[in-house]
């Protein structure tokens, strides 16, 4: 299948406020949020980007849509370089590539009704006449389960339930008929029963509208349910990327193994003694040398401190960045 979007060696540093001396001696410290990330997503594919907080997964998602400028590296959308696009080209891209954030309440204006919010992108991109727009919005609202649409059209965010708000955000992202959607932890804030409904909706929409997703999540169980391929990030780097079944059956990287072992299983008979890495994810200001995971890795060797292990193909389509592979 054709590649829809491709990231090459993406790097994003957020410089820290330093003193005048740091500036003078060019010793500005920075948070290395994304540190050389490359991957591609095929048309119609769902790529999961999993990792703990601070692993750089959300920043990666934003870089793909150029909501943040990369420090270096490039993004290609259908073979065209997103990083060098003009403002006009970028605006056109935004109609094709959209994002849904974690907290629907902070992504909706409290002063815009549901109808206004979903129609807004259409007026920005000058799509359709006002009458077409309303029809299109009502139709989409039914499709995402905001029903009865005529009734909810005039409601405001504070009158909606959490599940409904997230549906409004999804509808707003889909109203310009994009083909690529970055979903940044879209269910993390939702209640258990709402989560399942949103996941089911996302799967349905993907089938009906032929969408491609980058699905950012900290929950591997969710990734397993929705994704075709999963990439695991740690401190700004992808440590492992593989087709879903391959990753969950034969994880290679010690970090992925640890992450998998840590996922709580809703089954009291599955309790086990976990071998967990000690400590927590280190600061991205001054990450450990070599393999970022070595200070917490149960299998670490002196060699791990020396050089960054490259992603190596361990079996077809399955890449892992560990010197043990």
């Amino acid at each position: 299948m054709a590649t829809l979007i491709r990231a090459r060696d993406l790097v994003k540093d957020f410089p820290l406020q330093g003193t005048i001396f740091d500036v003078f001696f060019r010793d500005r410290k920075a948070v290395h949020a994304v540190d050389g990330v490359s991957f591609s997503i095929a048309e119609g594919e769902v790529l999961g980007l999993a990792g703990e907080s601070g692993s750089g997964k959300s920043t990666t998602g934003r870089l793909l849509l150029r909501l943040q400028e990369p420090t270096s590296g490039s993004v290609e959308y259908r073979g065209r370089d997103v990083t060098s696009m003009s403002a006009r080209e970028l605006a056109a891209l935004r109609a094709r590539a959209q994002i849904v954030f974690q907290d629907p309440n902070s992504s909706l204006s409290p002063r815009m009704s549901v109808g206004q919010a979903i129609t807004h992108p259409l007026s920005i991109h000058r799509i359709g006449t006002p009458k077409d727009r309303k029809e299109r919005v009502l139709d989409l609202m039914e499709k995402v389960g905001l029903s009865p649409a005529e009734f909810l059209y005039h409601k405001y965010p504070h009158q909606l339930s959490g599940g409904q708000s997230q549906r409004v955000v999804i509808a707003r992202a889909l109203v310009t008929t994009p083909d690529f959607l970055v979903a940044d932890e879209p269910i993390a804030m939702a209640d258990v029963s709402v989560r399942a409904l949103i996941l089911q909706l996302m799967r349905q929409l993907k089938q009906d509208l032929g969408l491609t997703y980058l699905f950012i999540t900290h929950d591997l169980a969710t990734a397993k349910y929705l994704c075709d391929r999963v990439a695991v990030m740690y401190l700004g780097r992808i440590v492992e990327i593989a087709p879903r079944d391959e990753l969950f059956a034969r994880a290679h990287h010690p970090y992925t193994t640890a992450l998998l072992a840590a996922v709580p299983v809703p089954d009291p008979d599955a309790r086990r003694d976990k071998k967990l890495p000690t400590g927590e994810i280190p600061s991205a200001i001054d990450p450990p040398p070599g393999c970022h995971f070595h200070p917490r890795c149960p299998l670490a060797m002196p060699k791990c401190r020396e050089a960054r292990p490259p992603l190596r193909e361990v079996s077809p389509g399955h890449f892992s960045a560990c010197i043990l592979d």
Partner: protein
Amino acid sequence: MERRETILSVRNISIEYPISIGVVKAVEDVSLTLDDGEALGLVGESGCGKSTLGLSLLKLLRPPGRVTGGQLLYRGTDILGLGNHELLSLRGRNIAMIFQNPLTSLNPLFTVRSHFLETIHFHDPSMPTARATEAVEKMLATLGIERKRLTEYPHQLSGGMRQRIMIGLALIMNPDILIADEPTTSLDVIVEAGFTQLLADLRRLYRLSIILITHNLGLVAEIADRIAVMYAGKLMEVASAREIFSRPLHPYTQGLISCVPNIRLEQKELVTMPGSPPNLAAPPAGCRFAPRCPKVMPICREKAPALIEHEPGHSAACWLSGRKD
């Protein structure tokens, strides 16, 4: 299993919040017991009353919230009848509580050490500081936190460490009941798993009884011996953890379990529960789950089913579960 002494018993507790448009019946006629050394999971979605119930166990409800009926017996003493002075000694010495976000529970201007000393000296003003410090150092060792952290402030600690400090503070006066309200919700997966293990160790070490309030079914499956499922202010089902997961009787419990992605299973489709919980200012007549229940019958909409013990130790409030079919 040997029958252990009941240490806490909740008898027909109802809690209301009067608000401008009426009275929200947050908890209605809930009865539960906690045995010595037992871990009880209190499970439900947001707004089901689980946190309100947890707060009431320490008489920590804030006005306008009020207990309108029932009894809370701790080793035979009615907590609701206690005066302020007695409550202060009950909290921390007998029953302690930890909350979701440790940052809001810790004082940013206090070091770890002063947090502990304040707690100890509040309960035991005559304890010499040297002896108190000794106790604190012993506690830190149990929690797996280095001694040098004693002089640090909350902002210098990681999320996992803060939550460990919180549990240390809760246990420093050696209470016999720990109420943990969503203790791992703000933590990352691996840190959460580590915390879960710590909780299991502490439980043995301190002979603790635990009430774990959470929406995370994976977490209760890891910790709880017995699980109580709440929905819209009412208890729906109470049984051993194994029974709840292997043979849930109530359709709500069944729905809740099957809508959670499980990393150990191949789930082609998640079972979803359409709709949302009822407005508690005007709950539906009859069973509160009836409007969303896939197995609803005419009687469900008329009369609320009582919580009945259908098998030893397994109770459910459902018209269906009494029938053999």
